[in-house]
């Protein structure tokens, strides 16, 4: 299925989804800066309350059957407004199509439903996102730090993370 067909199927089931339009060159931008690039997949913006329902639909619906969770990560934005986005890249081995879901979260005490019950590969990837960004995954059986040690202060991949010099900096 192509992007618009996937989106049409999603819209029949859930109404508050929005397609993220491709980046446009701002008006008056100098031509030498080049055209913004984005992969030709479907990009969906999903509110965090609806994410688990959407995930169930994406995996369960026969026309979509996204059976492979390629990647989970997050991005931290300070500008224009403070915001964090959890990014899910999905692939369907049955239909050979892919799509991207972005779930915006608040930077303070951000929490989102875990999808470990649908894709087991989410286990460690969600733990990594928690480790690096401090986004808590609800209903995750073991949402603890994975790469950093348990006592590590702060969330290292946040943009406002300040490194406190320690004995390794000498």
């Amino acid at each position, binding site marked *: 299925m192509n992007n618009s067909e996937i989106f049409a199927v999603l819209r029949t089931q859930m109404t508050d989804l929005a397609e993220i339009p491709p980046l446009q060159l701002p008006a008056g931008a100098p031509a030498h800066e080049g055209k913004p690039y984005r992969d030709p997949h479907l990009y969906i913006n999903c509110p965090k309350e609806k994410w688990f329902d959407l995930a169930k639909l994406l995996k369960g619906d026969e026309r979509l059957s996204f059976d492979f969770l390629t990647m989970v990560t997050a*991005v931290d934005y300070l500008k224009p407004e403070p915001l964090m986005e959890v990014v899910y890249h999905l692939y369907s*081995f049955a239909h050979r199509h892919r799509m991207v879901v972005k779930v915006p979260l608040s930077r303070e005490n951000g929490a989102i439903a875990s999808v470990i019950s649908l894709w*087991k590969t989410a286990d460690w990837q969600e733990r990594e996102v928690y480790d690096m960004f401090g986004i808590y995954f609800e209903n995750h059986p073991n949402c603890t730090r994975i790469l950093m040690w348990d006592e590590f202060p702060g969330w290292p991949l946040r943009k406002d993370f300040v490194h406190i010099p320690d004995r390794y900096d000498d």
Partner: protein
Amino acid sequence: MATEAIRISNPDLKTEEMILNLGPQHPSTHGVLRVLLKLDGEVITSSQPDVGYLHRGTEKLAENRTYPQMLVISDRWDYLSAMSNNLVWCLAVEKLLGVTPPPRADALRVLMVELNRIASHLVFFGTYGIDMGAFTPFLYAFREREKILDLFEEVSGARMTYNYIRIGGVMADLPEYWIGKCRSFLEWFKPRLLEYDTLLTGNPIFQDRTKRVGVLSKDLALDYGVTGPNLRGSGISFDLRKDEPYCGYEKYQFDVPVGSNGDCWDRYWVRVQEMKESVKIVEQALDRLPEGECNAKVPRLLKPPKGEVYTQIEAPRGHLGIYCISDGQDKPYRVHVRAPSFMNLTMLQEVLVGEKISDMIAILGSIDIVLGEVDR
């Protein structure tokens, strides 16, 4: 004299679960990996891998490095196949920049990546033999790998961290007589593959220890996001070189070996067959190496326009992906590395349950992880 089974029927005898801490410093974990095993007798009831000992914060480092500087760090993820890491980073940045490398660069990239795949699978072959108690194959495998590393050294100057594939092309064209040396290596290497079959593949002890051990079903493989030879060992024919070709892979003729049962043997067999396929690809690349430039015109200061890219290639261990967001500056805004070993290792939690402790190393070895990539 018939031996009599001795039955211990002492009511005071208590059995209890034992916790075994495997690693972090264990020769068979191929790096620094700790696995917490719970044992009932010699049957594993639960396993919890503990990673992060080699974490170097690649993704944070990327935010403070320019795009070409990050290339140097990419070598350090999967240090057994650094060419693939170089390649995926370059492909991602080239997409953002809108640069197309010339055909000769594409062919050289394929050539190097496939030679590196052979070298990487040779390490697997050798160390897996050691895991199974067969020391000899290791020496054979490293003898061959040495020759590949010599070829790389002539091309790039390095033996492990090549930094050869650059944004827009490759570092330099092939040195004089290199093609001849590579061809004579291939001619010498092909009969060696038959040697491996007699050493390890056809060895009944090795087969007994790997067949029907650590079975990973198709559904479980997809569920755990397993890719690469591990996925193909489970019977799913999916190879990005065939299914989503990059660097002109569609022009090369090769087969994708697929296993059937998803046990350790299949994962091993797929890798050994892949070496043969890689030899075919290298030969084809040498045969029709296009003439011309091996670098596209790329500005000295790289400032890709705003954008977002996800690129993945078929690395020796699975789908190696780069998710990169550019904000128009000379440094990436956010980089995420989808490391195949990290995903593949997750399946250990489930595959090990119910297996014997003596098969644990066989299963771990068959996943073929590189801890530099798991922890990044």
